[in-house]
């Protein structure tokens, strides 16, 4: 029997997991891709979504139900006691009486950590502001492993909004522990924040901060694209200029060859040319679908059922 890397633990931040633990979790995920036994029959998941989500909420819902469990929850805070001024701490203390495990998405950064301290139940972070989105990171790693056969020493270029995207923050930091070489392609206004760059320097991770995809070498193995969010720009003209400059089309990626893996956390607007869906490396829908497998594994592991 393999050791359960998540027994008695929460899933709040990728900082909490060392490389061996990440490998152990991914190893367990593979088992869930093959079958869905009713491991969580009689268990209840509370999906506490204080801000909108499509993929994360639906895939947790699907994952729990595929394992025979039930789900309760809400998908915005307007109809909850939070709108009456209830503290997050109290909301969690109340919810813990209704369920066996909690998934939380909340706009305040650090909210998932606070929730985990409020309850003895396992808590999984479904995204806390611009901070962490560990289940997305794990499904990205799972997809990378599927596509490239490994997660170690990959050459990866991140393209787009590297300032506000929690998805890229978690993934960049985690890949740095696996010997990745990174190209960070963004307009200067959306550059990776300095403290992340400091962490990369401290970890000795080779990384290149560039503004143009043309500066990325031909032998890069993965392009991780992100959406540039209009609401981050004060100047609408600047937004239009940047948005169009970072649109990736078949012509831009031809030099990287057919082995290139193309990823995007979705939703996408116009940063990915529709024709790229036909590229053999396009993995965005795999990522979304792998979310169910990975979340099944996390739920079952956290509840000690796997």
């Amino acid at each position, binding site marked *: 029997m393999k050791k359960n890397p998540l027994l008695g633990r929460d899933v709040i931040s990728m900082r909490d997991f060392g490389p061996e633990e990440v490998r152990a979790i991914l190893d367990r995920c593979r088992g869930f891709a093959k079958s869905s036994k009713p491991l969580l029959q009689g268990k209840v998941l509370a999906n506490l979504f204080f801000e909108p989500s499509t993929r994360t909420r639906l895939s947790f819902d699907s994952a729990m139900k595929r394992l025979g469990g039930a789900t309760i929850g809400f998908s915005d805070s307007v109809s909850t006691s939070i709108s009456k001024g209830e503290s997050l701490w109290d909301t969690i203390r109340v919810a813990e009486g209704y369920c066996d495990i909690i998934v939380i998405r909340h706009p*305040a*950064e*650090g909210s998932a950590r606070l929730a985990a301290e409020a309850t003895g139940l396992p808590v999984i972070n479904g995204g806390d502001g611009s901070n962490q989105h560990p289940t997305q990171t794990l499904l990205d790693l799972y997809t990378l492993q599927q596509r490239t056969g490994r997660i170690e020493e990959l050459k990866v270029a991140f393209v787009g909004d590297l300032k506000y995207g929690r998805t890229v923050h978690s993934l960049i930091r985690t890949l740095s522990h696996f010997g990745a070489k990174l190209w960070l392609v963004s307009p200067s206004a959306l550059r990776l924040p300095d403290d992340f760059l400091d962490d990369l320097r401290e970890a000795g991770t080779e990384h290149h901060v560039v503004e143009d995809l043309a500066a990325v070498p031909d032998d890069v193995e993965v392009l991780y694209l992100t959406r540039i969010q209009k609401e981050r720009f004060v100047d609408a003209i600047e937004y239009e200029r940047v948005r169009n400059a970072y649109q990736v089309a078949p012509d831009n990626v031809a030099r990287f060859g057919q082995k290139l893996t193309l990823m995007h956390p979705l939703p996408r607007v116009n940063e990915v040319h529709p024709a790229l869906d036909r590229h053999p490396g396009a993995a965005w829908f795999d990522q979304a679908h792998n979310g169910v497998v990975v979340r099944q594994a996390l739920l079952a592991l956290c509840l000690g059922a796997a």
Partner: protein
Amino acid sequence: MGRGIAPKRERAGAGDDGAADVKPANAKMQVSALRSGTVIDHLGPSTAFKAMKILGVAADATVLIGANLDSSKLGKKDILKIEGRELTEAEMNKVALLSPQATFSVIRDFVVVKKFRPTLPDQVEGLIRCVNPACVTQDPRVTGRFHVVGKEPLKLRCHFCERSLKESEVEFL
């Protein structure tokens, strides 16, 4: 733990080693000796008032402040003498967040009975404000907590939002 030393009279001016650290010409500007209490020497320049705030020194307490004095070690420094209050080691360690090089002398009847060089705590709770406007600790019902991840130079990380703070960004509550 403080180091045991032979009793030594507190001199007018700085703490026990501070007197030697101050140029003679400047010594006349120093504040007088303390009967009993705590002398904090080698505070960074212009930090004495912040140290008082961190320590919660009462508004009616007797304190002597030397600000922006010449120092051979630091260039400039502050000195703070608090009459009638012996700081605990935990309190002294809090001041280290503001001024890691600060030194402390506890005085009783003009005699230095204890010298202490503080160490930065591994974790700080409730003292510092997170600079991240989106952090959950912006809710006044949540007490902030930081991990000390670097000591020279000082670097803190918010326990909740994970934002790193450099020394220049540290803002005390």
